[in-house]
């Protein structure tokens, strides 16, 4: 199963404070372990919400609110996508995440990703084929963007 591991934002991440070298080194080592174990599929950090926006759609009209979103405690600062055998395995990995004092006061949330096989007959063969094509094209684009 795949899980999305969401790193919650904190004061520092929202202030745009960059991690120090020590933390980066520990995180790099941790990521290396994830890769070696065949767990790591993707991972990114996000800019503070002050550089973001929220879009709400109502009656076909969209309302745009620019960040920061100070009213919410549920902001995220980054994520990983992992391939694991169980939620328990994901929890074990998260427990080992480096947490130097003051760098990460927040929380990490683990959420299971929907897989196509879970959708049943409502996902018709045509829709499934369309979904697979979209994913393949997205993957091609991702590779091209890296070059």
């Amino acid at each position, binding site marked *: 199963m795949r899980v999305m591991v969401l790193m919650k934002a904190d004061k520092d991440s929202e202030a745009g404070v960059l*991690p120090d070298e020590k933390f980066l080194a520990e995180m790099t080592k941790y990521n290396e372990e994830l890769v070696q174990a065949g767990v790591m599929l993707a991972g990114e950090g996000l800019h503070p919400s002050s550089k973001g926006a929220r879009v709400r759609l109502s009656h076909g009209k969209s309302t745009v609110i620019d960040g920061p979103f100070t009213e919410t405690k549920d902001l995220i600062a980054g994520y990983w996508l992992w391939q694991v055998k169980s939620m328990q395995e994901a929890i074990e990995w998260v427990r080992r995440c480096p947490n130097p004092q003051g760098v990460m006061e927040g929380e990490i949330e683990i959420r299971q990703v929907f897989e196509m096989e879970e959708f049943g007959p409502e996902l018709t063969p045509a829709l499934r084929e369309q979904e697979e094509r*979209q994913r393949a094209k997205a993957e091609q684009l991702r590779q091209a963007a890296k070059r």
Partner: protein
Amino acid sequence: MRFMMLMIPKGYEKAAPGVMPDAKAVAAMMKYNESLQKAGVLLALDGLHPPSMGARVSFAGGKPRVTDGPFIEAKEVVGGYWMIQVKSKEEAVEWASRCPASENEVIELRQVQEMSEFPPEVQQAAAQLLELRAQSEKRMGS
């Protein structure tokens, strides 16, 4: 530049385990996904099971503490995401505005940190990360 579009459906923080998205909503969303893909914007996307099937780990005092979902204190949770490649924040907002979202949903747009934006010393320390990412992508593609 890359943006993450985070779908935040109000009420999903309380959704029961095993709840599946409505088939009609999925069909509408796939049409939208198709338009993102045809425009060469879509890099990745996924939907997430409700938080009642997930867990949170907090690190207060340096010790990991696990809490199983649902998370009673959560006012909003992520229901899914798109990763898009666009030229500006305005373009990202434009795409989010076209999403067939329902009225209880909000889309949060967040710019992805690119390695090239970090100061040189941080880039150097993180150069190994790029190598790791290349390896994981090879794995993903295989």
